């Protein structure tokens, strides 16, 4: 492929044609300063058309030059006979040679190649153009390419992980948008996002509702719109709200247990630990002491505990507590 260096009038460069655009960054501030200071170091690559030029690589450089009031630009021009595939390969190679591409840029690059190659060939071809992609990543990137532009933007902003984005991509658009906005607004950790996503999906299935309907619930909205609590407090309240909807019996049971424990009011440093998930039958009491006097005090507290009616309830009422809930 031969490039011929030419001086091109910017007025005939078709900046609206984004066929070969890979970069997701729109910011040209740094580029403006650099070009203004030392000029255009790397000429963009253009494809000659009968009357205009299509940008293959260098969208931001051209935008910066136009912004600086330039009327012409030094460019490397590809002949009009160059095929779409050849132009796509140039665009990918030029972009990946200068920086590592983010997920969205990789998915755009692969989408270009997938018009011409099957999966196996595309992995090989991408490698030759500077993209290291394996079969598993290829599948993710193919799905990424299908995501809505709004979700792609949240990935780029770092609000949601690719895994979460791909899950959102499987949903109806209003549901995906509602969740995306929830994550955008509360910015929970990726692990909490995953937990919320799973909960919401399952609650929606249980209740035969769409996720967007679920997230339009009055109580949920009241948490989201509450201006008196912090973002972290909102996250905690919403997680608890989801947990209560997903596992009402378990949540209520745990609340009852906590109430009993409060009423028992064990001294500090004595802890009653129930079996995991209340599945086993073995409870533990853990207490710390520093000397014999403290040991005696704790022992007396434990002796009193034996007679505490609420303590006995923990064992005797385990099932009865549930009955009142069901």
């Amino acid at each position, binding site marked *: 492929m031969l490039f011929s260096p030419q001086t091109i009038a910017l007025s005939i460069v078709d900046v609206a044609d984004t066929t070969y655009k890979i970069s997701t960054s729109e910011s040209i501030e740094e580029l403006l300063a650099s070009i203004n200071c030392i000029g255009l170091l790397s000429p963009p690559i253009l494809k000659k058309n009968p009357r205009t030029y299509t940008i293959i690589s260098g969208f931001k450089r051209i935008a910066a030059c136009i912004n600086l009031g330039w009327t012409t630009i030094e460019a490397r021009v590809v002949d009009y006979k160059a095929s779409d595939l050849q132009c796509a390969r140039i665009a990918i190679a030029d972009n990946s040679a200068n920086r590592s591409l983010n997920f969205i840029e990789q998915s755009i690059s692969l989408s270009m190649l997938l018009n011409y190659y099957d999966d196996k060939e595309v992995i090989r071809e991408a490698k030759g153009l500077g993209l290291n992609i394996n079969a598993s990543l290829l599948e993710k990137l193919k799905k990424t390419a299908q995501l809505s532009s709004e979700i792609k933007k949240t990935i780029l902003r770092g609000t949601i992980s690719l895994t979460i984005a791909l899950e959102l991509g499987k949903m109806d658009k209003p549901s995906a948008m509602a969740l995306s906005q929830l994550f955008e607004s509360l910015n929970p950790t990726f692990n909490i996002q995953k937990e919320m996503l799973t909960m919401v999906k399952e609650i929606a299935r249980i209740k035969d509702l769409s996720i967007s309907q679920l997230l339009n619930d009055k109580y949920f909205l009241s948490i989201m719109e509450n201006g008196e609590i912090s973002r972290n407090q909102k996250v905690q309240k919403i997680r608890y709200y989801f947990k209560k909807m997903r*596992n009402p*019996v*378990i949540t209520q049971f745990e609340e009852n247990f906590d109430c009993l424990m409060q009423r028992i009011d064990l001294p500090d440093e004595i802890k009653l630990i129930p079996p995991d*998930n209340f*599945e086993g039958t073995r409870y533990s009491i853990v207490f710390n002491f520093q000397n014999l006097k403290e040991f005696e005090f704790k022992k007396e507290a434990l002796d009193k505990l034996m007679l505490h009616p609420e303590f006995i309830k923990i064992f005797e009422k385990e*099932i009865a507590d*549930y009955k009142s809930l069901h």
Partner: protein
Amino acid sequence: MQITNLYIDRDVLDYPAVDAIRTRLNIPHTVIEGPEKVYEIVSASADPVESGKHALLLTKNKGAFIRNCPGTVKYTCCDYTILHIGTFCTMDCSYCILQSYFHPPVLQLFVNHDDMTASLDSVFSQNKKMRIGTGEFTDSMIWETIYPFADKLILKFAKQTHAILELKTKTVNISNILEVSHNRKTILSWSLNTERIIKSEERGTSSLDARLNAAARCQSKGYPLAFHFDPMIIYPGCEKEYQDVIEKLFSHVSSENIVWISLGTFRFMPALKAIVEKRFEHSKIVYGEFIKGMDAKMRYFKPLRISFYQKIISYIRLLAPDVLIYFCMEDTEVWEKTIGFDPSDYGGLPRMLDDSATRHCGLSEDIN
């Protein structure tokens, strides 16, 4: 589900069962050098579970025909003995553990029946009370439409007095066994569920009415019966629907002819969840209130199980006060809070089941 691919292990090509199955299925077959080839084909398909139900492999059981049930020490086990006749199932239940138990799941029938007979002879010669069943890794009776051999097993058990055979099924493939001289050493048992669950979660199985009618026919031929409410699914209104099933059960068969009724709520290895979600889009069974149990399986929250069992047991007791009810894999706390005692008070669950089998099936008391 229809078998579309028949694979025959070269080692068993001239076994009598193979010819009979080829003739009966009347589909092209592929001779293979070992089961690995079939595993590869099934694993490579988009839905290996589905593919595994269409591919039948005729092969040898190279391991033990007689095995102990893989229970865990954390929960009370019935100490069942498995007669390993084959694997997987032509029916398609959403909750089926076999979907994630075998890697990949493949319909296999072990045709080295002489070895199976020899294994049984060896067991029988011990003169030890045993409850032996074929329904752990497969449905006991699906094979009757492919290669009927339940009658031979029934006859085999009829000739001894220490062990009973339990044939557990969701089919009504009983025509071949009705007239067999069983000597009450074979218990015909059915898995039961609510009509709603049968319809939504048990693809390709017989209806509740059909199962109960089949049970009644077997009873009329003198067979002792058993029923398994397992897995019971907890959903809104389930108690009433299980009560309806229980009432229907006792309107079809006599409680006096029931050797045991087992109860077990849905439990599953975590890996099954994704399979159910993928293969049974409309199923909600994996969205119950589950916790991770002491055996790492997902189980309904214990207080929920206890409350549910209490109701189910009260419904059964109302109609059949004396029938033996037991739990499959529950702990002492559940037993005590629902049935009212710990099996160890009665010598343990295996002993309780053996005693019931002795009473109903006339097992010999002699134990060497």
